[in-house]
């Protein structure tokens, strides 16, 4: 059993004040989500509909992808298919190389994080500039996003001020969010007006019309799309929805679940490019189609990347996004990651208390905590370090199936708890933050054998 998540979480928790702020801030977002979704009477029906539409689409994905391709091509959009991250990156690089473009401005796309596109392009002398404010901040700091909706939520404004000064976005140090945002705006506007290519993610791809929907609050995706000559939109195969009308459910759910807004500022629908523009869509598989055949795990493909499961997750809130070994953190990341690399990410499904809060808030009703549990089972099967646990279970079964053994064991345990020094617990990873329980002088069984007859039911 690796303890990568626990180790990284320890680093995060070392700054206790910031960790506390992180926990409380994300909980605030969760409460806002509750308030705003509570204002919609039919919110539960919307969740059910969105979930069913996704389920339907996934079980007809080949048909809808083909329809999408046909319609998109009819709109003058070039459609490309990539089997894995490498092919995806090759396609994007090829499109830019063909036009001799070496600067590309990007709005948020978790898929390009999954493919490590920025690094791939940089190695080939193409510079990618992230334009979402949070992503720009983490890019300047040479970090990765720690949250899929709020990429820089692990940083405080002082750290943002420092990196802005260091990278010359400001001339003098400031930690005023208003001013820093204004400086980023000024810096990026210039780039938007000069860059020839833009890259965006895709929130929804509409099979019926061959168009895509991109949702932002900052307007960065729209500036990129409408000002650049070459638009590249990158999407996973699971982003498809059957019809334009289906958006009525997803758009009502997305921002309410993500940030507690009734709708994001810009919900943009892109179809035909302007005459002087070229539009490309890259459709990525990267093992998503393999997942479709797994009854216990395919529902993870319903995800619309709202981040609600992170905001509510007690483990995520108290360990930070960078303690996860996968670009997408939190509960959804922890069920996506093992499919990509079981060995590397094998402790992520254990970074959960299985409280079920993620499942409760998921707008498309993914059975997140059940999948976390099921992945544990998969991992236990393949990991030799679980042998110890297997022996332990065998021993416990024997122990608890014989009354006198159980009685003896608990007597021993009570004595042990009294005599073991407290420091012993502190040496254990789990025990570090905990205390031994207080042991009463008399057990319930002992008490009952003395007093039980007084409470016997009269028949």
């Amino acid at each position, binding site marked *: 059993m690796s303890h990568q998540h626990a180790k990284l979480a320890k680093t995060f928790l070392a700054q206790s004040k910031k960790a506390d702020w992180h926990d409380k801030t994300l909980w605030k977002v969760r409460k806002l989500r509750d308030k705003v979704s509570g204002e*919609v009477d039919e919110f539960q029906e919307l969740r059910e509909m969105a979930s069913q539409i996704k389920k339907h689409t996934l079980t007809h*994905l080949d048909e809808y*992808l083909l329809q999408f391709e046909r319609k998109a091509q009819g709109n003058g959009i070039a459609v490309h298919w990539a089997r894995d991250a490498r092919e995806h990156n090759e396609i994007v690089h090829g499109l830019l190389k063909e036009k001799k473009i070496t600067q590309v401005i990007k709005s948020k796309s978790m898929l390009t994080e999954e493919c490590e596109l920025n690094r791939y392009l940089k190695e080939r002398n193409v510079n990618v500039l992230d334009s979402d404010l949070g992503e720009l901040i983490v890019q300047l700091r040479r970090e990765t996003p720690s949250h899929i909706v709020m990429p820089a939520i692990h940083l405080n404004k002082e750290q943002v001020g420092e990196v802005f000064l260091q990278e010359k976005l400001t001339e003098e140090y400031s930690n005023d969010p208003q001013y820093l945002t204004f400086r980023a705006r000024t810096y990026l506007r210039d780039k938007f007006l000069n860059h020839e290519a833009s890259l965006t993610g895709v929130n929804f791809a509409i099979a019926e019309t061959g168009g895509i929907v991109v949702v932002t609050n900052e*307007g960065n995706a729209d500036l990129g799309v*409408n*000002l650049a000559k070459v638009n590249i939109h990158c999407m996973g195969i699971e982003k498809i929805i059957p019809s334009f009308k289906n958006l009525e459910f997803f758009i009502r759910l997305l921002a309410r679940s993500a940030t507690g807004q*009734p709708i994001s*500022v810009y919900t943009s629908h892109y179809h035909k490019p302007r005459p002087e523009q070229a539009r490309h869509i890259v459709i990525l598989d990267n093992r998503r189609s393999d*997942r479709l055949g797994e009854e216990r795990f395919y529902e993870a493909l319903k995800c619309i990347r709202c981040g609600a499961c992170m905001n509510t997750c007690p483990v995520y809130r108290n360990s930070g996004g960078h303690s996860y070994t996968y670009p997408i953190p939190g509960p959804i990341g922890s069920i996506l990651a093992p499919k990509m690399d079981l060995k590397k990410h094998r402790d992520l499904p254990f970074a959960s208390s299985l409280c079920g809060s993620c499942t409760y808030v998921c707008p498309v009703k993914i059975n997140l905590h059940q999948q976390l549990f099921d992945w544990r089972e998969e991992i236990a099967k393949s990991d030799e370090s679980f042998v110890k646990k297997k022996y332990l279970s065998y021993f416990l079964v024997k122990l608890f199936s014989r009354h006198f053994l159980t009685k003896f064991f608990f007597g021993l345990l009570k004595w042990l708890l009294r005599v073991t020094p407290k420091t012993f617990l502190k040496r254990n990873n789990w025990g570090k933050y905990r205390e031994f329980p207080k042991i009463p002088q008399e057990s319930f069984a002992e008490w009952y054998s003395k007093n039980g007859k007084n409470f016997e039911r009269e028949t």
Partner: protein
Amino acid sequence: MLSGILKTGKILKEKLNSRDFILENIRKNVKKLGFNNSLPAFQERGDSSLTSKVELEAFKKRLASVHAKVEVLSSLASLNDVLSKNQVNAQKILVDAGGEVEIKGSLKMPAAKRALGEIEWALIHGEMGVEENGAIWVNLDLLTHSALPFITENLIVLLKQKNVVKNMHAAYEGLAAKKSSNGVFIAGPSKTGDIEHNLVVGAHGARSLLVLLY
């Protein structure tokens, strides 16, 4: 016969193109999954059903909550007065509202892309408002330059009161005829919470939004 089998084997071994590989793998795996979900029907409940009346006051309140400013015009003729009341200089405004309104002395759409960055005010036409969230549908295909609503420092949207609908169900219903266009729901000025979760109005898109209802 034998050569035929060998040939088939060779073809199978050869790399399928990625498109066919992905589609084939989807088919194979969906079959393994073994079920076939149909599209469900939606029954709206509560007071936000399609038939319930649109409340303009609620829409205006929503606009205010997403940091947009609202003015109600008695008629289009009072446009100039309302603009000057809101400190909009006619010489600094670019009108791109399909000939519906004209403002004397207003700016022309610049030919150079760079000059788009200098637009202070842009007035465009909104086709539909949504009561539940304060979003306004703008058809980008009807604009002289589709970047205008995003690149302008301040955005002004003209919207007919009768074009406000109840919620997103009614909105997408109403857009059925235009479903293949380039269009955007805009709800307020651009904003961000990316620095310590502080709300900052005015991120990359327009820094203010003035909605003129008439």
